[in-house]
């Protein structure tokens, strides 16, 4: 476990020493503040559009950080040859995978905390209202979803040729699931065989990441929280898919020849 935490620490250090996170945060902050400064019909109390835009930017930034950071972990280690002195230590490949996953997930979690803190400040300053439990649920569910995304990115990085192609593939898959995944059953109903079977198979196989997107509840000040039991079930669901992708990653990585 010590090894895994040590590897995770390296990933986190890399994230906050690279400029990506700061650029994304500054961009999100600037756009949100600029959006909030626009005067619509002389009403300073209009706030939902700011929340909507800020949450969208947070989601995009978090996905960017998660996918781009993860996509380059193992390929960059191989390309820069840092994997050799690492694996020459008593470190198994499974530990490398877990360490990289944990590091990327924790790093993304830290980024999420910063983003949500900013969101709370901006919207709270207008609304004078801080629904902390809603923020907690939204951030927690998003973090759980990012675990699946990170595990998926790790897996694709093992099979794909380069970090850029991993990033592209993962973005397309994740965006596809978020936008269309929940509606595949409706689309399948109107199709003839065998397309219907194919769509249903995809529908039941893919991780339903759209469950974890509860931005609407924050933006529209929905009074009721998601039942905690459902949050827990969703987290378990995310954990299951995360475990599946990590296992696939290990199966792909364990026998890969690494030539110095």
């Amino acid at each position, binding site marked *: 476990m010590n090894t895994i935490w040590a590897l995770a620490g390296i990933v986190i250090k890399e994230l906050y020493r690279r400029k990506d996170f700061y650029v994304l945060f500054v961009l999100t902050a600037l756009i949100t503040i600029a959006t909030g400064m*626009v005067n619509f019909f002389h*009403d300073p109390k*209009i706030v939902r*559009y700011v929340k909507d835009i800020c949450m969208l930017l947070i989601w995009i930034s978090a996905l960017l950080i998660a996918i781009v950071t993860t996509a380059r972990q193992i390929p960059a280690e191989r390309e820069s040859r840092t994997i050799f002195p690492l694996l020459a230590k008593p470190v198994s490949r499974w530990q490398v995978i877990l360490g990289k996953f944990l590091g990327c997930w924790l790093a993304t979690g830290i980024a999420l905390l910063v983003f949500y803190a900013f969101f709370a400040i901006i919207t709270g300053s207008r609304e004078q209202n801080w629904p902390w439990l809603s923020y907690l649920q939204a951030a927690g569910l998003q973090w759980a979803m990012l675990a699946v995304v990170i595990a998926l990115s790790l897996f694709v990085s093992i099979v794909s040729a380069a970090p850029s192609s991993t990033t592209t593939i993962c973005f397309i898959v994740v965006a596809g699931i978020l936008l269309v995944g929940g509606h595949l059953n409706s689309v399948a109903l109107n199709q003839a065989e065998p397309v219907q079977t194919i769509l249903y198979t995809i529908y039941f196989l893919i991780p339903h990441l759209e469950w974890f997107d509860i931005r609407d509840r924050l*933006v*529209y000040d*929905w009074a009721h929280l998601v*039942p905690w039991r*459902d949050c827990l079930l969703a987290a378990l669901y995310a954990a299951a898919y995360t475990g599946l992708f990590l296992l696939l990653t290990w199966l792909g990585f364990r026998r890969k020849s690494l030539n110095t």
Partner: protein
Amino acid sequence: MKASPYLLLALVLTACFTLATGIEPRAGSWSNQAKSNNVFSLLFGDGRRMFANQFFTMADVYFHSGYYPSIFDARKEGTKEIIAESHGHTDSEEDERKEDFLGKPKDWIDRFGRHFRITEHTHLEQNQEREILPWLRLAADLDPQMIETYTVGAYFMCQHLNRPQDAEAFLREGLRSNPGNYEILFGLGRLYYQNYHDTDRARNVWQLALNCWMKQDYQDQRENRLGFEEITVNLANLERDAGNGEEAIRWFQATQKVSPAPRALQKQIDEIKMKMAAPSPAPTNSLR
């Protein structure tokens, strides 16, 4: 003698500035897009109009607090732009059923997913309607020729948010972009009558709206009969409230020609006639 690089830099900068001053007056005639002071026109040209619809839909989504059908949800034709249909009346049970696009869950994934979605049909109220305004503002900027943006925005500003000055400014902006549009003129007239209680101004504007409606070609008049009905019935009510019974009757009779409920209007006409026929009460003499 070798030229100093700083001298060369100064010469090149001077040349650039000179060229710019020479070319700038000519460049204005190359493209209208470049002349536009609207950032969306500058960025997208005429393509900006396709975004305007999307922003109007966003206003609708906000009005329903996120409970809104996606392109994958089955819904009947004509349920688009719910906000435009609903402004002015509250939803009946039938409307509620019509707008329940989700239906029964199709499978366990759908069922579980609804725990995270917004699944209740609501409308914004208690001044929360202000949240739709930014999207209407953007829609108007992107497509100034989309009339509904102005009429819907003005309706909510007047009737729900008690901001008639902003509504008037918005409608006038719409009129500048769409001169002679009867719908915007009708909205203005309603604002003068209901919010400012300025009968004369309302009458003038509604009559102007009617004239504009009449200037349409026959086909448009056939399609926009509702517009004629709205203008004439409001004129009729205005005249009735102002005590001009004959004018009121004239307008109600004009409305009857297009109204699907002429009997209800006849009832109104009869009431006015009865009121006109009733003897006026004798003036009281305080010296008796």
